[in-house]
């Protein structure tokens, strides 16, 4: 089995992935899929300036190479 770690952010965006895991579809393809949750936003500074917000958002695990795939 090939180990893959995927980030899950908004559930609506990852719905097929959740179904695939729970119904053994990844396993049938030889993939040992592990999910990690995207980091919540936490305390948010309200701003009208996009440049004040880090565009990485909650995808820190991908940036740190702790997951190999995510969707947005």
């Amino acid at each position, binding site marked *: 089995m090939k180990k893959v770690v995927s980030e899950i952010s*908004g*559930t609506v965006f990852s*719905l097929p992935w959740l179904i695939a895991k729970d119904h053994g579809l990844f396993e*049938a393809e030889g993939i040992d899929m592990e999910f990690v949750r995207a980091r919540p936003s936490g305390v948010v500074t309200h701003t009208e300036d*996009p440049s004040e917000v880090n565009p990485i*958002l909650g995808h820190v695990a991908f940036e740190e*190479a702790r997951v*190999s*795939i995510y969707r947005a």
Partner: protein
Amino acid sequence: MVRPDSPHNYPGTLGNRPIAVQFHAGSHYVALRLLEGYLPNEKIKLVHYGSPQQRFEAMWNGEVDACVVMEPWIALGEKLGCKAVCEGHYLGAENASDDMDEATFAAINRAVAKAVDMLNADKRKYLHYLIDDPRQAAALAQYGGLTPEDFHLPRLRYSYTTPYTDEIVEDTYHWMVRWGLLNGAACATDLVDNRLPEAEATSADD
């Protein structure tokens, strides 16, 4: 989306009114794409509020005039009597690291495609994932909760993973540069490498 008692019934009255989004995410981009059809750019007042729950509650509590959210927050808002003043869809993206090999990526996509078929065959059957998500279940319950019957199913659109076309990349790139969301010194071909899909297309043609 606006509160049930909001005077706003279409996007054209939202000029200079605060609208909650998450910058650099879908809610930010789809808000600009929708509102620029109704308002001069300088009157579009988006405010970064973070997660969908934070955006929804900012709208519900009256901190902002409107919020941009996705499911299950649209279903919740509509159940509470909120008004959708405009609605848009956008493409998602699968982002894989450089070290993911082609065979693994293909295997993942085959599994996800089967799940897409299952989902499209009976969407309501799988809505419990949205309702029971532990990150938002308590918040949804606080507002009265949701059942699968509360969702408008045609809004949920799932399709197979396909490469972005060069045309979509170019059009999106120019739109983002126009809004100052990308450095205009870069070019689309610097940002996207479509050699693999092109090679597959060539192989298929052969």
